[in-house]
C-alpha cells in the first residue's frame, strides 16, 4: 500500500482515480484540484507517490513537477495527461517524472504503473 497525493482539476478524473486507489488498496492522503499549494502539501505529507495532471489552469503540472523535484529529487511523480506528444512525455521524464499515464486510462494500467513506481 502506498500513500498517494492526487492532483487533477477534473472532479470526474479524481473520482475515477480514487476508485482505482480503493481497488489497489492505496491510501489517498491528499486531493487537490489545482497546481496551487501542491508543493506545500507535499512537504507537509511526504506521500509515496503523486498523481499529477499536466493541463491545469493557474499552474500546470509540469511547473508543479519541477517544483517538487527541486525540493525532493527522489519524489515519485506520475504524470497524467491526454497529450500523447512524445516531446511532452520526454520533457516530463527529463524533469523527473517516474511515469506518464495517458488519458483515457483504465484501472489495470494505472494500478500497474502505481505498483511499478512504488517499487522503484
Amino acid at each position, binding site marked *: 500500500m502506498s500513500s498517494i497525493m492526487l492532483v487533477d482539476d*477534473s*472532479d*470526474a*478524473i479524481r*473520482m*475515477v482515480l480514487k*476508485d482505482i486507489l*480503493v*481497488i*489497489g*488498496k492505496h491510501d489517498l492522503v491528499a486531493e487537490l484540484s489545482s497546481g496551487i499549494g501542491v508543493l506545500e502539501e507535499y512537504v507537509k505529507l511526504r506521500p509515496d507517490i503523486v498523481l499529477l495532471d499536466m*493541463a491545469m*489552469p493557474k499552474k500546470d503540472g509540469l511547473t508543479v513537477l519541477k517544483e517538487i523535484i527541486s525540493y525532493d529529487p527522489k519524489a515519485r511523480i506520475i504524470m497524467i*495527461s*491526454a*497529450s500523447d506528444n512524445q516531446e511532452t512525455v520526454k520533457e516530463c521524464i527529463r524533469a523527473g517524472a517516474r511515469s506518464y499515464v495517458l*488519458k*483515457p*486510462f483504465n*484501472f*489495470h494500467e494505472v*494500478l*500497474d504503473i502505481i*505498483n511499478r513506481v512504488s517499487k522503484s
Partner: protein
Amino acid sequence: MTVAGIKVSIKDMCQVVKMSDEFLRVARQEIKSEIDSLKKILLSCTNDKQLYAESNNIEKHMHKIKGLAPMMEQEKMGKIAKISDQIVKHVSSHGTLTGSHDIISEAVKRMSGLLYGDLDIQVDDFEKHVKNTYPDIFEL
C-alpha cells in the same frame, strides 16, 4: 477477483460500480461546460484568423474533452476532440489555417449533438473530410 495482480473484494467492486453513475453525471457536466465554453469562444470568433488568435484557449477545452469523453463511453466525441485538438495545435504553432474555423465549428456542433444523444451523428465522414483537407497535418 484479481485486478493488476491485486486481490479485489466484491465490496470494493460494488463501491466502484455505485460510483460509476456519479462519475458519468460529473463527467457529463464537465464536458457540457467545456462544450459551452467552446461555443462561447466561437460566437466571437468568426474566421480563420480569429480562430488562430483563440487557438490556445480552444486547445485547452478540446484537450479536456479528448481525455474525458472516451472514459464516459463517448468514443465518437473523443475522436472528434482528438482530431480537432491536432488541428488547433497546428494552428497554434503554425498560424492561420484556411478552413480551420469551419472545421472546428463543425466539430463543436457534432460534439454537442453527441452529448445530447443525437445518434445520427457520424465521425467517419468528419475524419475523412479533415484528413483530406489537411493531409500534411495528419501525416505526422
